[in-house]
C-alpha cells in the first residue's frame, strides 16, 4: 500500500472510531458534555482536571450504575482553551442526549463569558466552578450560571484576610505593599476590583503587574518586584506556563517564596514541579484538599482503575487538578441527584438541573456519604446565591507534595456580596434584564 493510501486509511479509521465514541445517549441516560483542553499550551493543566472529572463519572457508572439507575454518558470536546472552539463545542453538544446537555463546565473564563447568554436562552446551567464571571453568583440576574464553591472576589478577600493574620492583624496591613501578578486576560483581571476596594479599606498599597499570554518571559516583572518594589506580599492570578515561569523568576530575583501566594489556579503540581527546589515554600489558595487519602479516591481506584478503565495513571489520582476535576463532577452529579429528588429518576433537563443546583445542600453528612469527609467544607446554594461562599485554605508546596498550612479562612462576604449584587444589577441594567424574585 502506498503512503498516501495508508494515510487515508488511518484518517478514515480515526473518523470512524470518533463517530463510534460519540454515539448519542438513550432515554435512560443522562448526557453530560465535558469541555476540556488536552491539547494546546494549557494542556498540562487542563489534562489532569479532565481526568479527574471523567474518572468520577466513570466511578458512579461502575459502582452505582449511574445516578439512581440513570447511566451517565459523557462526551469530551477539546477547546484548546480557545474561546471560539469553546463556543463551537457548546453548540455541538448542547442538544445531545434525550434531554439535551445536563450542564456545561467551560473550564475557561473566556468561554464562560461567551456562552452565558446562549446557555441562559437554551436553559442549560453553566457551572463555572471557581472561575468565570464573579457577579454571575447573583442568581436573580444570572439564573443559569453557578460559581460555587467560591469566586475570584471571595478568594481575593480571603487572601487579604490570610496575610492580615500573618502580619498580626488586619490593622497591621496599613502601609504594607501587596502586588498582584496576573494573566492579562478576563480571568486575571477578575480580582483587581476587590483588591482595590480592600486596599482602600485597610490602607495597603496595591500594585498591578499584568503578564501577557502565555507568560514565557517575566524577567522585567520580577526584577521590578524583587529588586525595586519589594512588596510585603505578592499574589498571582496565573495559569499554565505563566505559573512556572513566575515561580522561577521570583526565585531568580531573590523574592521570598513564603510571601508569594497563588490563586487556586496557580497552585498545582504542574506549576511547581518544573520549578524544582525554587518552588519550595510557595503557597496557593485551595477550596479542597490535595492528596488521595479519601474514600472517594479508594472507590475510583477500585471501581475504575481496578477495571482497567482509568483515564490517567494511578499515580496521578489525588493530584490537585485531578481533585478539582473530581469535585466539578461531584457538584454536577449531586445537582442531577437533587433534581431527581423532585422530578423523578429519569434523565433531567437543563432547567430541572438548574433547580437541582439551586437546592444543592452538601452537608457534612452528605459529604461523608460521598466519601469526601474533610475533603471540602459543606456548602449550600440557593436561588439568589449561586456561589455558596465556602471558606478557603492556604496550601504550601513542600518539594514533593502540597500540604495545608492554614485553617479554613472565611472570605469577606460582607464586602464581596454587595459588590457582586451591585455589579450584577449594573449588568442587568445594561442588558435590559429584569432580575427574578427569589422570595
Amino acid at each position, binding site marked *: 500500500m502506498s503512503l498516501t493510501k495508508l494515510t487515508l486509511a488511518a484518517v478514515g479509521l480515526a473518523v470512524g472510531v470518533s463517530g463510534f465514541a460519540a454515539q448519542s445517549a438513550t432515554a435512560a441516560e443522562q448526557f453530560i458534555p465535558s469541555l476540556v483542553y488536552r491539547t494546546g499550551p494549557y494542556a498540562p493543566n487542563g489534562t489532569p482536571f479532565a481526568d479527574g472529572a471523567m474518572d468520577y463519572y466513570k466511578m458512579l457508572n461502575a459502582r452505582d450504575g449511574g445516578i439512581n439507575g440513570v447511566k451517565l454518558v459523557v462526551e469530551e470536546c477539546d477547546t484548546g482553551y480557545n474561546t471560539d472552539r469553546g463556543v463551537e463545542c457548546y453548540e455541538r453538544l448542547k442538544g445531545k442526549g434525550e434531554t439535551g446537555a445536563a450542564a456545561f463546565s467551560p473550564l475557561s473564563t473566556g468561554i464562560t463569558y461567551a456562552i452565558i447568554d446562549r446557555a441562559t436562552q437554551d436553559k442549560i446551567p453553566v457551572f463555572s466552578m471557581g472561575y468565570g464571571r464573579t457577579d454571575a453568583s447573583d442568581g436573580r440576574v444570572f439564573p443559569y450560571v453557578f460559581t460555587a464553591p467560591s469566586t475570584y472576589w471571595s478568594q481575593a478577600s480571603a487572601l487579604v484576610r490570610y496575610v492580615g493574620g500573618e502580619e498580626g492583624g488586619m490593622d497591621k496591613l496599613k502601609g504594607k505593599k501587596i502586588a498582584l501578578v496576573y494573566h492579562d486576560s478576563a480571568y486575571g483581571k477578575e480580582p483587581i476590583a476587590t483588591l482595590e476596594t480592600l486596599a482602600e479599606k485597610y490602607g495597603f498599597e496595591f500594585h498591578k503587574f499584568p503578564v501577557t499570554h*502565555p507568560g*514565557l*518571559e517575566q524577567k*522585567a516583572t520580577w526584577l521590578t518586584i524583587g529588586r525595586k518594589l519589594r512588596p510585603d506580599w505578592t499574589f498571582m492570578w496565573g495559569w499554565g*506556563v505563566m505559573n512556572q515561569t513566575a515561580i522561577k523568576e521570583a*526565585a531568580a530575583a531573590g523574592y521570598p517564596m513564603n510571601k508569594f501566594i497563588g490563586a487556586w489556579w496557580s497552585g498545582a503540581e504542574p506549576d511547581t514541579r*518544573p520549578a524544582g527546589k525554587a518552588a519550595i515554600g510557595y503557597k496557593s489558595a485551595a477550596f479542597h484538599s490535595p492528596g488521595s487519602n479519601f474514600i472517594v479516591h479508594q472507590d475510583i481506584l477500585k471501581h475504575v482503575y481496578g477495571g482497567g478503565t482509568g483515564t490517567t495513571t494511578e499515580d496521578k489520582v489525588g493530584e490537585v487538578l485531578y481533585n478539582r476535576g473530581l469535585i466539578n463532577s461531584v457538584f454536577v452529579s449531586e445537582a442531577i441527584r437533587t433534581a431527581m429528588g423532585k422530578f423523578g429518576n429519569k434523565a433531567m433537563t437543563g432547567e430541572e438541573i438548574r433547580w437541582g443546583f439551586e437546592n444543592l445542600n452538601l452537608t457534612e453528612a452528605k459529604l461523608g456519604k460521598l466519601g469526601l469527609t474533610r475533603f471540602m467544607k459543606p456548602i449550600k446554594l440557593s436561588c439568589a446565591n449561586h456561589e455558596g461562599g465556602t471558606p478557603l485554605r492556604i496550601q504550601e508546596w513542600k518539594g514533593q507534595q502540597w500540604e495545608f498550612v492554614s485553617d479554613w479562612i472565611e472570605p469577606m462576604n460582607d464586602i464581596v456580596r454587595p459588590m457582586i449584587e451591585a455589579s450584577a444589577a449594573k449588568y442587568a441594567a445594561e442588558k435590559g434584564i429584569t432580575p427574578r424574585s427569589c422570595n
Partner: protein
Amino acid sequence: MEFLTAIFVTPFVEIVSYPIFFFEVVIGGLLAGVMYSLVALGFVLIFKASGVFNFAQGAMVLFAALTLVGLMEHGLPWWLALLLTIAVMVLLAITVEKVVLRKLVNQEAIILFMATIGLSYFLDGFGQTIWGSDVKVLDLGIPSAPLEFGGILVNEFDIVAAVSAGSLVAVLAVFFQKTRIGRALRAVADDHQAALSVGIPLKTIWAIVWSVAGLVGLVAGIMWGTKLGVQFTLTLVALKALPVLILGGFTSIPGAIIGGLIIGMGEKVAEVFWGAAFGGAIEDWFAYMLALVFLLFRPQGLFGDKIIERV
C-alpha cells in the same frame, strides 16, 4: 499631561534615582536576549542555506527537548539520551528533506513556507503523541542561583545560557568558515544554480543544514526546557525569535545574536521604565515595534544581505 510625564520624565528620573537597578534590568535584558538568539539561530541557518523561512523551528525546539527528556525518563543516562536525541534530529532532517523539500524543489518560497507550517503542526502533535502533554522536568544540573556582583543581581542560569549561545555561535562560525561543508553551505546560500553547476549536492546540503538547525533547536530546547519545563508552550518561543530576526537579519548569525541582545534589553527596559505609562505588559509588542523601526531604515535587518535586483 500625566501621560506625557510618565513617558518623558518619570522613567528618566527613575533611571537616575536607581542606577544599580537600571543596570540589573539592562543585564537581565541582555541575558534574556541570548535565550531569544538561541531560537533565532535555527531560523537563520535554514533561511541562509535555502531561503526557506522554517515556521517549524519552534516545533523542532519542542520535539528535541521532548525526545531528550522522554528518553531520560525511560532511565537512559543524560549523555546517551543526548546522543540518541541528536541522532533523532538528524533522522528528522533527512526525512524532511526526502519527504517534504525534495518534492518542492524549484517551488515558490511561499510554498516551502506553507510546507513548514504543516511540518510544525505535525511535529507538535507527533511529539506529544509519543511523549505525552504533561510538563516534564528537565534537570541537567544547570545551576540557577541568584548571584550579586557589585550589588547587581545576575542569575547563574542566564550566564550558562549566554556561554552556551556564545559557544554555539563560535562553533557555527568555524563550521561555516573553515570546513568544506560549511563553504558548500555558503555557496548554496549565495546561489543555488551556481552551486549545483560546480557539483555541490543541494539535497545533501539541505539535509545537513536541517540537521544543524535541529541541533541548534536541541540546545535551545535544553535551555528553555530547563527554565520552563518541557511542554507544548516551548513552540511559542519562536514568537520571541521573530523580532530578533527582523532586527538582526534573516541571513546573519552574528545578526541573530546582536538582534537578540538589542531586543532583550530594549523590551525589558521598556517594560520596567515605560510600562506603567501604558498599563503594563508592553514588552511583547514593544519588541516587534522596535524591530519595525529598524526595518524602516534597514529593510534587510542590521546584518542581513542587501537585496539588489537587476532589471
